[in-house]
């Protein structure tokens, strides 16, 4: 297998693994959403990722870019609501960063574009109790690990997942300022954000698939210091 089609096969496997994981967590995500939202996150995401897994399996000669773009387009048309554009639309746009294949550099560019699109669309910042609270530390930790700390990609991804975990935990005690949960005001305190949670699950499956693809075990990382850029955190 050529490196390109090999990477594409791993991308297909990643989408399938995410679909399985979201299906497993379907009820949990819906429970989280029913506490502070409108109780459709688990079902919508499960339906969308299942369709995405079928669509990417059907691709004739997949490339990484085509797999990611197809998954994004399928999420857009199947998930609906605000989650469709946030998860699916952002994947569609970010997929262009993978047009020359998957490298540590293109993965960073992909992650940055994905984050940028989610932020543009959702207009949320760190501390609003949204998926951004998981994404921002994950993407910045990934970038720093690759570009500054020169870690191997798999280690960088493992650190990013650890950073996302911190982000998810961070959503529990804070008050929502964006999305439907924001209308609950202080009643949103104490609940974990469903969007941040599903984002973490997706990243965990990317990591597991990448490790499997490279025939390595998932690295254990020092997760104590996730990075977020200056000025991202808000104090209110």
């Amino acid at each position, binding site marked *: 297998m050529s490196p390109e089609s090999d990477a594409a096969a791993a991308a297909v496997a990643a989408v399938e693994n995410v679909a399985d994981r979201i299906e497993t967590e379907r009820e949990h995500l819906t429970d989280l959403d029913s506490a502070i939202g409108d109780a459709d996150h688990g079902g919508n995401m499960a339906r969308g990722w299942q369709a995405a897994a079928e669509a990417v399996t059907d691709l004739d000669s997949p490339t990484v870019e085509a797999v990611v773009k197809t998954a994004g387009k399928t999420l*857009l048309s199947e*998930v*609906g609501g605000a989650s*469709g554009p946030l998860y699916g*639309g952002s994947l569609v746009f970010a997929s262009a960063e993978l047009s020359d294949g998957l490298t540590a550099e293109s993965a960073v560019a992909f992650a940055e574009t994905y984050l940028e699109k989610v932020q543009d*669309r959702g207009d949320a910042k760190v501390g609003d109790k949204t998926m951004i609270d998981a994404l921002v530390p994950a993407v910045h930790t990934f970038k720093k690990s690759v570009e500054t700390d020169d870690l191997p990609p798999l280690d960088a991804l493992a650190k990013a997942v650890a950073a996302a975990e911190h982000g998810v935990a961070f959503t529990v005690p804070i008050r929502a300022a964006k999305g*439907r949960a924001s209308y609950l005001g202080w009643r949103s305190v104490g609940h974990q954000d469903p969007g941040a949670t599903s984002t973490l699950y997706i990243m965990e499956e990317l990591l597991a698939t990448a490790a499997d693809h490279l025939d390595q075990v998932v690295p254990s990382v020092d997760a104590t210091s996730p990075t977020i850029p200056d000025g991202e955190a808000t104090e209110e």
Partner: protein
Amino acid sequence: MKKLINDAETVVDEMLDGMVAAYPDTVRRLPDTQVLVRDSAPVDDKVAVVSGGGSGHEPTHAGYLGEGMLDGAAAGEVFTSPTADELEAMVDACDSGAGVLLVIKNYEGDVMNFETAGEMVEMEGTEVAEVVVDDDVAVEDSLYTSGRRGVCGTILVHKAAGAKAAEGADLDEVQRVAHKVVNNVGTMGMALTSCVTPEKGEPTFDLGEDEIELGIGIHGEPGVERTEAMSADEITEELTEAVLDDLELDAGQEVVTIVNGMGGTPQMELFVVNRRLQELLGERDIETWDAWVGDYMTSLDMAGCSITVCAVDEELKALLGAPAETPALTVR
């Protein structure tokens, strides 16, 4: 709750087929989508004006397809935004090369899906512009929105932008008049009863026999204030004052008004409301240039109404009075 439907799963699909059967010379359905377009789309050299949103607000949006108004209307599931790929298909089918104006009601799902679709078609070289309608004076933020909701004033945006596009104006000009309407229009609604969605089959909120909700949106969400039932005149005063306070009109200003039924209210009652609305405007020396009364943007079977007031100048009067030929609105 009894409903004249077959299956909640297929109700939107069957509604669209029924609409095409009713207006075969005016609208057609894009294959494999929930998008209806005017039969002549794309119209050569004309800026296209398109809209869309959840179903359940009929005749919004597909009822306004045709000469002088909309070129495309995307229908989502009941009270659910259309998806970005459906919106993309609509834009592609309506663009003649002169560009497309997206008229979006301010709900998070609608805004995100329209913007995603807009960026996707721009990547393919299609020129799009958008206008987000937020005319509901009842709320700053709601269960469904950041900022004010887009409600019945959207019809006036469709009408003005559609007329401007029909004149042959370019995309910037069509967008400009759309913004002009948005900047001059306010709406507030009320409910006598909740609506019943096909899927749920029971009222989305409970309202006692002697209670009404003021400040409702169009999705069966509760309003901003629940009060005891009042007379038509008292309700009209509450709604009108809220809208006029927001618009801050000068004496002598000319306006267009809409008394809009929510789907379950007879015309008799809407005319009673319009009578008092016109009296109230007269007391403030505001001149009604045109008064529309009817079901323009509904909430399924909800009983209730909304009142829309839009300040007009010579330009808007010409556009709102220009000819239109659509299933739900004809102006000659």
